C-alpha cells in the first residue's frame, strides 16, 4: 500500500468515527445504521455473484435466518448477544452449505430460480411456524446487545457498534478478494470448465462462496434484529432480495467497496422515495436496466473510469 492510500484511509476512518457529531438528526443516523447493515449483506452477495458468478435472488432468506436465530436465542434462552450472533451466523452458513448442493448442478437462470425458491421457503416458514416465529406478527422486544455491562440502545451507540462490524467485514472480504481465493472465485465466474481443468475444485469453491455470502447475511441479520427491536416476515420478502441484488449491481459487484456505495445509494434512495411506495420498485428496475447496459461495473466502475481519464489528461499535460 502506498503512502497516499494510507492517508486517504486515515481520513476516511476519522470521518467515519466523527460522523455522529455532524449528524444530529436521529432519523438520518438511523438510515446510516441501516446502510451499514445492508452493506454487510451486499458484501457477501458481491463475493457470491460478483466474484464467483453465482447470482442469488434469495439473499433475504439468509438475512432472515440470521435475524430470527440471533433474536430467538437472545429472547428464549437469554443468551448474551455475541453468543447468539455466533449461533446465528453458524446456522446461516449451514443454510448456505445446503443451498450450495443444488447450486452445484445449476447455473444461470436455473440457479437464480433455485435461490428465489430458497428465499420464499424461508419466508413461508417464518410466516407459518407460529409457535416459534410468532407468524405474521413477528418478534417484538428483541433485547439490546450489551458489551461489558454497557447496553447499546441509542442510534449513536448503534452507529459505533455497527461500524466496527462493517469495517471488519470490508477488511476480511477485501483480504479474501485480493488473495488466491478471490482470484479462483473470479476464474470460476469466467470459465468454470477451464478452472476445473487447471486443477480448481470448482464445487468446493462454489460451496465456499455460498457459505461466505451466507455468513455475511447472517451477521447482518443478527445486527438487524437487535437494532430494530422488532422483526416480522415482511422484512424478508422477494422485494428485499431484489433490493440486495440492486445494491450489489448498481454499486459495482466486482469490488468490495461497490457494496458500500450500492447499499448507501439504494438505502438513501428508497427512503427518499418512501412517499411513492408503489413506484419504488419500478424506479429500481429502471436504474438496474440502465446500470447493466451503461455501467456494467456499477458506480464504482464509473468512478474508476473518471479517475483514469483524469490521470491520462494530467500525463498528457505534463508531456506538453
Amino acid at each position, binding site marked *: 500500500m502506498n503512502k497516499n492510500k494510507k492517508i486517504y484511509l486515515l481520513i476516511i476512518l476519522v470521518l467515519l468515527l466523527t460522523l455522529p457529531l455532524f449528524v444530529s438528526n436521529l432519523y438520518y443516523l438511523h438510515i446510516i445504521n441501516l446502510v451499514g447493515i445492508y452493506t454487510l449483506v451486499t458484501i457477501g452477495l458481491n463475493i457470491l455473484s460478483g466474484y464467483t458468478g453465482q447470482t442469488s435472488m434469495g439473499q433475504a432468506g439468509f438475512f432472515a435466518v440470521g435475524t430470527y436465530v440471533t433474536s430467538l436465542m437472545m429472547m428464549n434462552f437469554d443468551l448474551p448477544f455475541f453468543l447468539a450472533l455466533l449461533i446465528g451466523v453458524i446456522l446461516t452458513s449451514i443454510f448456505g452449505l445446503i443451498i450450495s448442493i443444488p447450486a452445484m448442478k445449476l447455473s444461470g437462470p436455473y440457479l437464480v430460480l433455485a435461490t428465489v425458491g430458497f428465499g420464499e421457503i424461508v419466508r413461508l416458514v417464518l410466516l407459518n411456524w407460529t409457535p416459534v416465529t410468532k407468524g405474521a406478527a413477528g418478534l417484538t422486544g428483541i433485547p439490546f446487545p450489551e458489551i461489558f455491562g454497557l447496553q447499546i440502545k441509542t442510534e449513536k451507540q448503534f452507529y459505533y457498534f455497527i461500524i466496527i462490524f462493517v469495517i471488519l467485514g470490508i477488511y476480511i472480504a477485501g483480504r479474501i478478494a485480493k488473495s488466491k481465493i478471490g482470484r479462483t472465485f473470479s476464474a470460476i465466474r469466467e470459465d468454470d470448465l477451464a478452472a476445473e481443468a*487447471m486443477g480448481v475444485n470448482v464445487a468446493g469453491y462454489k460451496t465456499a462462496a455460498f457459505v461466505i455470502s451466507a455468513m455475511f447475511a447472517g451477521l447482518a441479520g443478527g445486527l438487524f434484529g437487535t437494532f430494530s427491536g422488532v422483526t416480522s416476515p415482511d422484512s424478508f420478502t422477494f422485494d428485499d432480495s431484489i433490493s440486495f441484488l440492486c445494491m450489489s449491481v448498481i454499486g459495482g459487484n466486482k469490488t468490495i467497496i461497490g457494496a458500500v456505495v450500492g447499499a448507501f445509494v439504494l438505502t438513501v434512495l428508497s427512503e427518499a422515495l418512501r412517499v411513492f411506495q408503489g413506484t419504488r420498485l419500478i424506479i429500481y428496475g429502471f436504474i438496474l436496466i440502465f446500470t447493466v447496459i451503461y455501467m456494467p461495473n456499477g458506480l464504482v466502475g464509473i468512478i474508476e473510469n473518471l479517475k483514469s481519464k483524469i490521470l491520462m489528461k494530467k500525463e498528457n499535460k505534463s508531456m506538453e
Partner: protein
Amino acid sequence: MTHGLNILSINGISISFGGLKALSDVNVHVMKNTVHGIIGPNGAGKSTLFNVITGLTKPDSGDIFLEGTKLPHIKPHQLVPLGISRTFQNIRLFKEMTVLDNVLIGQHVHTPTPIISILLNGRKSNEYEKISREKAIEALEFMGIEDKMNDIVKNLAYGQQRLVEFARALAAQPKIILLDEPAAGMNPTEKVNLLSIIGKLRDKGYTLILIEHDMKLVMNICDNISVLDHGKIIAQGQPEVVRKNPDFISAYLGKGENLNARNKRN
C-alpha cells in the same frame, strides 16, 4: 513397447454418445520426452480423446496409465496434480482477468491456501503469493509475452491469447501438456514461434501431445503420430512412416491428392 519410456498409455478406450461411437478401442502409447501428434479429419474423435485423458468425459471402457500407474476415474481437477495439463481448441481463458492472474490460476494446485494468514495479511500468504508470481512470470517469459502480464486477456490478439493459455498450462508444472489445436488462428510468424516453443519444451523434458490440422506443423515437430478416423486408430508411428500409409492417405487427404496440395489449401 518398452515400459520405461512409456509415459502415457491409452488402452482400449471406447465411448459412445447415444448411437454414435465416438471412440472404439483406441490404443495410443506416448513416449516420454516426445511430441506426439493426434491427427484426423473433423469429427474423428480427437477432442473426445483429449477429454477422456483429462477426465472431462468418462469412457465406457478402457484404461489410461500414467507412468505405469492406472489413472482412477477421478474428477478433472484431481488429475492436474498428477501432471496432466491442457489447452482448449476454442481458447478458454478467464477473459476479464489479467494475463498474470490467468497464469496464476495455472499454479492453483501448487500454491497452498493458508486461510488464517490470508485473512490477517500474514507473511506466509504473501510469501506464497510472491513465489507464485515469480513462477508465473517465468512461464510468461518462456512464452515471450511477459510484457503483456498486466493486460486484460480479452484485449490481446488471438495468437497471443493462445500463448497465454499455453503459459497457463505450463504453470501447472505438468509432465504432459495436451495442446488442442495450438496453431489454429495463428499467422505464419506466430506458428514459427510456436514451433520453437514446443521444441524447447521437449528439450526441457516435457512430453507434449497435440491435436493439429496444420500438416506441415505436425510433420515438422512430431516424433510420433496417431491417426484417428471415425473413432478408430488407422495409422500410427513416425511421421515418415505414417505419411506413406495408404489408409492415412485415403482417409485424411483423399485419394490421389498429395500433401503439398493439402498444405496450399491451408
